[in-house]
């Protein structure tokens, strides 16, 4: 097992936290800027993702073409994404180019210009991708599930409609940016052979303004649908997406670690009950998985697969059989041992190398989870009993209370 302890924190002079993850042998450095600028902060739907996508579409000093040419010439990779809870810019650079690359990162994060023409083109591209998504059963199935779980007005449950793109203007992006893309609203992770070596450069560009504050997460309202079946028609599909799930628990709940183990037994690895039955015994699918996760304020358990239209009812019956079996009978010591070992191996891989460690640590910081989250998880994995696992299935996986979604042909 690698080092799973929480990394050391240094603060820039304006209070911005910098987490340092040392390791590896290569002359590469990864710097990630995480901002409290995800979908949960937006008033206009998709403002977070459009603002983030526009970061590299031009700055006050450089138009889009020149800016991208400058970035690409350094050899660095800039990946920027906005998801439900945060927005981020990941930069991977040759160590020797770090200073010029960080200057570009500063420009991109804090001085984008949001040109009209680039926004128009970006929206056209996003609309095309949106329309393509309307033909993917997996996309429709996922949307319907989260809408049922969180409510249609909730940022986690809201389904995008074509007309939503009309409201996205440069004013919306620029306003969202000025409120949330501020040094005082972010933290930084640095990983590589010599993360401390990056501190002077980070200080030069990112400690110039503002005073860091603990992120404020808005209170969200949830409206979970009653249990039952939701059917979404996707014309011409040869397979259906099948989803089944429940409202779960958040990371601060005392059962959260145990639920991770229970989930792994059901559908969290290749040898899971669901894979063995529905793929390896019935041959209904290329893959079936389950996940127990959480956003801010709500947790969820979801089982997902894609099967031939004619097998979808039988698949749901078999999923329920597997869940019921785990509610009735304890797992054997042998099966639990396999899951324990596999889980420990998975944690070891999550901390294998500085870049993976940086990704893993992000989850702890973003959800204000205990700094010893992984130590506690390891402890649960090693000590949880078959009896406790059965109890978790009885509490959290009641087939009578499940939300079921089928997206496919009629």
């Amino acid at each position: 097992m690698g080092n799973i302890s929480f990394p050391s924190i240094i603060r820039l002079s304006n209070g911005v936290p910098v987490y340092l993850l040392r390791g590896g042998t290569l002359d590469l450095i990864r710097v990630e800027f995480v901002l409290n600028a995800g979908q949960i902060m937006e008033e206009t739907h998709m403002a977070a993702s459009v603002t983030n996508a526009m970061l590299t579409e031009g700055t006050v000093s450089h138009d889009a073409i020149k800016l991208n040419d400058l970035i690409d010439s350094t050899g660095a990779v800039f990946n920027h994404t906005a998801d439900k809870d945060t927005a981020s810019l990941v930069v991977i650079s040759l160590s020797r180019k770090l200073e010029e690359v960080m200057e570009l990162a500063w420009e991109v994060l804090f001085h984008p210009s949001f040109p009209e023409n680039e926004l128009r083109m970006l929206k056209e591209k996003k609309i095309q991708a949106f329309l393509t998504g309307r033909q993917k059963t997996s996309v429709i199935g996922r949307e319907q599930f989260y809408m049922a779980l969180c409510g249609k007005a909730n940022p986690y449950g809201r389904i995008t409609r074509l007309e939503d793109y009309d409201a996205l203007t440069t004013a919306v992006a620029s306003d969202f940016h000025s409120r949330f893309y501020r040094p005082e609203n972010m933290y930084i992770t640095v990983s590589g052979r010599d993360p401390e070596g990056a501190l002077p450069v980070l200080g030069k560009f990112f400690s110039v303004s503002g005073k860091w504050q603990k992120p404020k997460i808005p209170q969200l309202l949830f409206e979970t649908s009653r249990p039952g079946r939701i059917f979404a028609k996707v014309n011409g599909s040869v397979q259906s997406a099948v989803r089944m799930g429940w409202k779960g628990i958040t990371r601060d709940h005392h059962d959260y670690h145990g639920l991770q183990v229970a989930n792994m037994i059901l559908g969290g690895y290749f040898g899971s009950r669901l894979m063995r039955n529905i793929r390896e015994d019935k041959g209904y699918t290329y893959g079936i998985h389950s996940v127990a996760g959480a956003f801010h304020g709500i947790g969820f358990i979801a089982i997902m697969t894609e099967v031939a239209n004619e097998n979808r009812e039988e698949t749901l019956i078999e999923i329920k059989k597997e869940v019921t079996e785990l509610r009735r009978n304890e797992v054997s010591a042998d099966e639990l041992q396999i899951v324990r070992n596999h889980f420990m191996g998975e944690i070891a891989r999550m901390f294998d190398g500085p870049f993976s460690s940086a990704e893993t640590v992000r989850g702890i910081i973003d959800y204000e989870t205990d700094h010893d989250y992984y130590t506690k998880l390891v402890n649960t994995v090693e000590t949880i009993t078959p009896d406790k696992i059965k109890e978790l299935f009885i509490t959290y996986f009641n087939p009578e209370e499940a939300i079921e979604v089928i997206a496919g042909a009629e």
Partner: protein
Amino acid sequence: MIEFKRHTLANGLRVIAHFDDSTPMVTTDLLYDVGSRDEDPEATGFAHLFEHLMFGGTAEVPAFDTPVMIAGGENNAFTNNDITNYFITLPANNLETALWLEADRMQWLDLSESRLRIQKSVVTEEYRQRYLNQPYGDLMLLLRPLAFRKHPYMWSAIGKDISHIEKADSKRVKQFYHKYYTPSNAILCVAGNVHPDNVFGMAEKWFGDIPHGQCNVRELPQESPQVERREVTVHRNVPAAHLIMAFHTEKRVSRQFYILDLLTDILSGCDSGRFPEILVRKKELFSEADIYLSGEIDPGLVIFSGRLKNGVDIKGAEEAVWDELNRLATRQVTSAELEKARNRYEASRLMSLISAGNKAFNLAFQELLGDADGINTEIEKYMSVTAAEITDCSSMTFRQENCSVIHYLPESHES
């Protein structure tokens, strides 16, 4: 510099060991020199179906995954037109578990009828999920038979048609196993926190007794030079048109591969490439415009792939791509473009060396190409590419007579 040691067992198994003590893990990569190019044209998709069967267990190990999980590992495999590749990553002190499992299934695989029946069904669902139930999912299924008329690259690794998978019988499965799953037809690479001497000792212990196997001589029909443009138009239920233009290239180990790899990076490897700048931003013909090498060992393809913006005529869009390709033949790429591509290659090469798993696969694949040291020497081949070579190579490659085109149009769009 990636240091490694090499040793060949008496039965022909080539073993490569790379020591990396910066990780607590180790990866075994076992590459079999068999891919979909080795299939009977009437039984395609076979190499990939067989990959699924390799997880079916043996008399000694009834379920392949169980010991991997007990050892805290993860494993997977992939099949392409050239090779079938299996890998296991696990804590370094459990290396022997991985070697035991790989040696066991190289020799004693359980090829039962029921196993075959279920995996045929799983692969059929994979075919549907990845190729048929995805918008644009069948593009490569259409391109291969258009571009290749003789060489077995004319079908994809998933196979020509679902019916081929349904027809697979256990007699053929057994012949395939005995012909290709032998030590002399494989390369084993172990990368991670285990010393090479220990790797070679364990490899001898677990693989040393497996019989050599027959020698396979690969005699594939070679593609004749294409002499005229090929074009197909299809209509599908998609929101936007898509343009594919594919050109024949030379084999993987030719100088041309490196020239074209660098050139495709200059054209579309990053946002400031020529295609994103000119075809997407300035002319607004495409929402995405990409060009890449298919990367096969035998002569393969360089493929332009572009999603059209709404309302753009596909013939006009194709003209604009030709303008850019022709410009390469007449005007050299700039030194700034070359310098950028070299920097990007240097950085992406380092990124590819972060994980032991990637290093293990790269070493094994380079060994298959002729020398594992390619992992270190390829950089020189990229760095020495000149603007004049790019010009020559472009005029040789980007010709109408060497081009296969797909106009993939939305159903409502009648041409």
